[in-house]
């Protein structure tokens, strides 16, 4: 769907970014006692109990503000070669389909890359392991079919 763009192998930056994501998930558990799954935080921000909503809404604001803070402090170089600026598809029908699938799938399956992946695997949850294997396999199959079969 996206234009195929070669990306360079960035093991160190990816490892460092992963550690930061893990630390954030750890902070959410220590301070709020919840799983830092972005799909769960998102649905909870709209439907959660009132005392449980504030941190979710502000956490999302933190996510949204991350690229702005990097730019504000001239730290765009941190994403250099890895993600900024991102290449985004202008196939709107495809993006609408993709968004709908991700929204329905993460609610039905109770989690996404962060909830089942980062947090679930860290908690040695069998449900999360099955979910991660299932969505990874489906995603690889999807990209393979789109890029090499269709």
């Amino acid at each position, binding site marked *: 769907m996206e234009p195929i763009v070669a990306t360079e192998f960035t093991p160190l930056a990816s490892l460092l*970014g*992963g550690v930061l994501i893990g630390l954030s998930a750890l902070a959410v558990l*220590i301070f709020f006692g919840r799983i830092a799954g972005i799909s769960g935080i998102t649905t909870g921000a709209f439907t959660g109990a009132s*005392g449980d909503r504030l941190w979710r809404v502000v956490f999302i604001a933190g*996510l*949204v503000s991350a690229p702005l803070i990097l730019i504000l402090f001239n730290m765009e170089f941190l994403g250099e070669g890895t993600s900024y600026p991102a290449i985004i598809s202008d196939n709107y029908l495809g993006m609408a389909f993709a*968004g709908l699938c991700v929204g329905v799938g993460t609610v039905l*399956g109770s989690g996404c890359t962060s909830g089942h992946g980062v947090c679930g695997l860290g908690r040695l949850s069998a449900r999360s392991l099955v979910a991660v294997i299932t969505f990874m*396999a489906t995603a690889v199959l*999807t990209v393979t079919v789109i890029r090499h079969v269709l």
Partner: protein
Amino acid sequence: MSFKNTFVIGLVAWLSGLLFGVGLIISGMANPAKVLNFLDIFGHWDPSLAFVMGGAVVVTLVGFKLVSKQANPVLLPSFQLPTRQDIDKPLIIGAVFFGLGWGVGGYCPGPAWTALSAFAPGTLVFLVAMLIGMSLATGFKKRLT
């Protein structure tokens, strides 16, 4: 909730979200081109994102174990963690839908939020569709149970 509590909760939540978002950007997770190349193991394979999951899970594996000794979270009254262990149909069907959408768009929920401020039309379409999907599925799931 006192004003001071609200302020502290807000500050910690914002910093946690910021840390998560910066991690997504530095790691390359926030770039759909990199995500799709990671998933393209039979073509332009870029294995970088395996290191994201690796780095994050090492932290949660060790950290979560230490936190489990804590009686209550610091800022909210009690822990609320998933307890289910059964592998049911919605888990599998949901993961298949999620994998399909992730493979088509290159976005999972976190990166969809970090990309919002760039106001790229493609991301906005994805994000709105994702929120609609979540709300539809939340209603559907309620009727299932």
